[in-house]
């Protein structure tokens, strides 16, 4: 079965694959265009936030960019603005390709993408003007959340319809991960919003438990499902080797959703003791899927003759490595022995940044660089940027997440020793935060290259579209041969 699938993946030749790709064009541009903007905005806000640690009074007179607001807006712009729409776009394309049919209901995801990005705009502006809900990773107020929820459901309808009309009945591993993710988000997002952001929220400490559950299920489980589903599609395709063992992938899938969903309650959270205990036990068990993914990735890629040269394969390889690392960090910080040092330090943000930027963003950028030229029917306008961006991202993420993690451990050691003044623990981390800023700057530069590629491509496509339209409008008046040239132009645009 794998071999069959492979020949279908490496397609792109043949009229049929190009028609599938063309059917995804406008929805994907709508999703990725907004995502690229939010990636840049999110990283810029992140940079603005971290500047507080260079010069505390930088935004003392500007309420909109005070640390607490800028940081929350940055996190949400990256997670909701970039990660989720990029993931959904890639998912739609993978579903269409695996189903060997054109995208079903293509108008629906176009509308949904615009609603989604409007929702993110509403939410981000709300945070900056002080209207955040106050729950970590769920800061968007109701107006924004409702738009996001509706848009997600619309995209899910199109994705499930595409899945339903597939020609190959048997499922590929990516199908499991992506379908589960489609189901996951509406459940966790509606639960968290209905219980936390209403007129009758749950009482007291139950809010802590529900917010932690939601954040873990979104950042760890959802991003992992979509990121791994994408990686399991592109790794074999790009490495030119079949995915190592469907059974191991199935095992990784089951253990990931069974155990991963129980993590997230901090070890010393002020909750009944059974909750952190259950969460820690689940974390130990989550070691199983993380290691299984490592085995699958290594065995799939090893022995491949495909050189990655800073291209999409490099992205997916680096992203998968980051997933394994961030998974191990998350598991470690759920162990009481380790969390004594790292809890309440920058180690936690280091882990989420590695998961969001190092793993998910990198895998998505790689996938988009691979699929977008096919979808658009022409090459990337700046192919060299792909390689430069890979190096910028890799260096930036190692510096950024690495210095946060080391700074966190350093801070935790000082925090854990009551003889050390608290100010010492802050200043210990400060040096690392400042060094990490360089890394963040590199990532921001990389994201600008990404946005440049996406927008030049969109612009080129729109110009070609306008040209065709002008020719079409002019043609009957000038001469009858114009309609022939119109047909030629259209062909050029499509091919």
């Amino acid at each position, binding site marked *: 079965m794998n071999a069959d699938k492979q020949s279908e993946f490496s397609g792109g030749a043949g009229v049929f694959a190009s028609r599938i790709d063309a059917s995804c064009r406008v929805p994907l541009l709508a999703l990725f265009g907004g995502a690229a903007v939010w990636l840049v905005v999110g990283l810029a806000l992140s940079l603005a936030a971290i500047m507080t640690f260079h010069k505390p*009074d930088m935004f*003392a007179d500007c309420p909109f960019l005070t640390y607490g607001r800028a940081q929350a807006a940055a996190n949400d712009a990256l997670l909701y603005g970039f990660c989720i729409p990029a993931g959904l776009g890639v998912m739609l394309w993978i579903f269409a390709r695996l189903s060997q049919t054109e995208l079903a209901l293509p108008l629906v995801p176009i509308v949904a993408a615009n609603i989604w990005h409007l929702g993110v705009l509403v939410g981000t502006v709300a945070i900056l003007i002080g209207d955040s809900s106050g729950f970590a990773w769920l800061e968007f107020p109701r107006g924004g959340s409702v738009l996001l929820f509706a848009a997600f459901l619309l995209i899910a309808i199109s994705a499930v319809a595409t899945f339903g009309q597939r020609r190959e009945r*048997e499922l590929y591993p990516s199908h499991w991960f992506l379908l589960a993710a489609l189901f996951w988000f509406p*459940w966790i997002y509606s639960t968290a919003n209905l219980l936390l952001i209403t007129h009758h929220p749950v009482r007291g400490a139950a809010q802590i*438990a529900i917010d932690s559950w939601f954040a873990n299920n979104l950042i760890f489980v959802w991003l992992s499902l979509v990121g791994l589903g994408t990686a399991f599609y592109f790794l074999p395709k790009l490495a030119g080797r079949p995915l190592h063992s469907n059974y191991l992938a199935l095992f990784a899938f089951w253990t990931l959703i069974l155990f991963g969903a129980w993590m997230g309650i901090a070890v010393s959270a002020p909750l009944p003791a059974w909750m952190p205990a259950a969460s820690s036990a689940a974390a130990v068990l989550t070691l199983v899927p993380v290691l299984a993914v490592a085995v699958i990735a290594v065995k799939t890629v090893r022995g491949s003759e495909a050189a990655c040269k800073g291209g999409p394969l490099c992205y997916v390889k680096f992203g998968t490595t980051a997933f394994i690392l961030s998974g191990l960090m998350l598991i470690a910080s759920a162990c009481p022995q380790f969390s004594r040092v790292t809890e309440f330090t920058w180690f936690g*943000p280091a882990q989420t940044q590695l998961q969001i930027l190092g793993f998910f963003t990198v895998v998505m950028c790689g996938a988009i660089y691979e699929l977008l030229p096919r979808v658009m029917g022409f090459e990337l306008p700046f192919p060299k940027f792909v390689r430069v961006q890979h190096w910028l991202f890799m260096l930036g993420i190692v510096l950024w997440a690495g210095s946060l993690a080391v700074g966190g451990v350093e801070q935790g050691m000082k925090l854990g020793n009551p003889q050390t003044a608290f100010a010492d623990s802050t200043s210990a981390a400060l040096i690392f935060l400042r060094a990490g800023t360089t890394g963040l700057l590199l990532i921001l530069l990389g994201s600008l290259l990404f946005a440049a590629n996406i927008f030049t491509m969109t612009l080129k496509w729109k110009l070609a579209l306008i040209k065709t339209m002008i020719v079409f409008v002019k043609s009957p008046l000038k001469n009858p041969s114009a309609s022939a040239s119109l047909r030629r132009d259209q062909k050029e645009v499509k091919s």
Partner: protein
Amino acid sequence: MKNGFSVFMAAFIALGLSWCGFVLGPVQQLGTAKQTTVLNSSDIYPIQRPGDATLGLQVYRANGCAACHTEQVRQDGVVCEVALRNAGKNPVVVSNLVSTLKLADLTKDEADAVSDKITAAGGSTEIQIIPAGTDITRGWGVRRSVEADFLYDYPVQAGSLRAGPDLANVGARLPDLNWQLVHLYAPSALVKNSAMPPFRFLFELRKVGAASSPDALQFPKDFPPPAGFEVVPTPEAKEIAAYLLSLKADAPLYEAPFTPVMTKP
């Protein structure tokens, strides 16, 4: 997995289980929580925050203070001490016995055993429970944070990062209103090398009129405001200061017992 339905069922089972655990569980166990009584007392805990402090929580939320401050104190168990209250009818026997026993730095079981021995000899004792742990040694709290501390808060701002110190007990630790306000306006005026951003936008810099405002901040001598000006807190600044002063998790509870230290009058 053969078809879409089996994937759906797998996801349904996995997410459903964790939903029952970490959403339904907490809602059942904590969602109907009520006030409790303070240990060895008829006082109830927690008491609803005063009105301006409740508004102040919204200022705290709006500015994302929880991005850097936790409101949860950690504790590594307790240490017990046995104190002799009354030597009883045989003071010599009891005091001889006491001098042979270890009275401090005990576990609860050891303390019970020691207490039993002394009681058997005719004395009467009291076991004092002293919470242990770094946070407590730092003076950030007198006991660990528990669910009850957050009963009336919405949204609960427990936080997860200590870029700044813990605030669970800041109202008891730093009860001076003027200190809190000056610290919000210019943290480095009071805490050397503070990394906290100043919240100047919560204050008004005003020219001093005929008489200075009764609300104007009293600055330390080495940090005077510009000559002829005074700094007056906006309503938001007063509210958030009231909220900070209302943060007092210092009642001994059944789930987090400790023996209050009697302060000398």
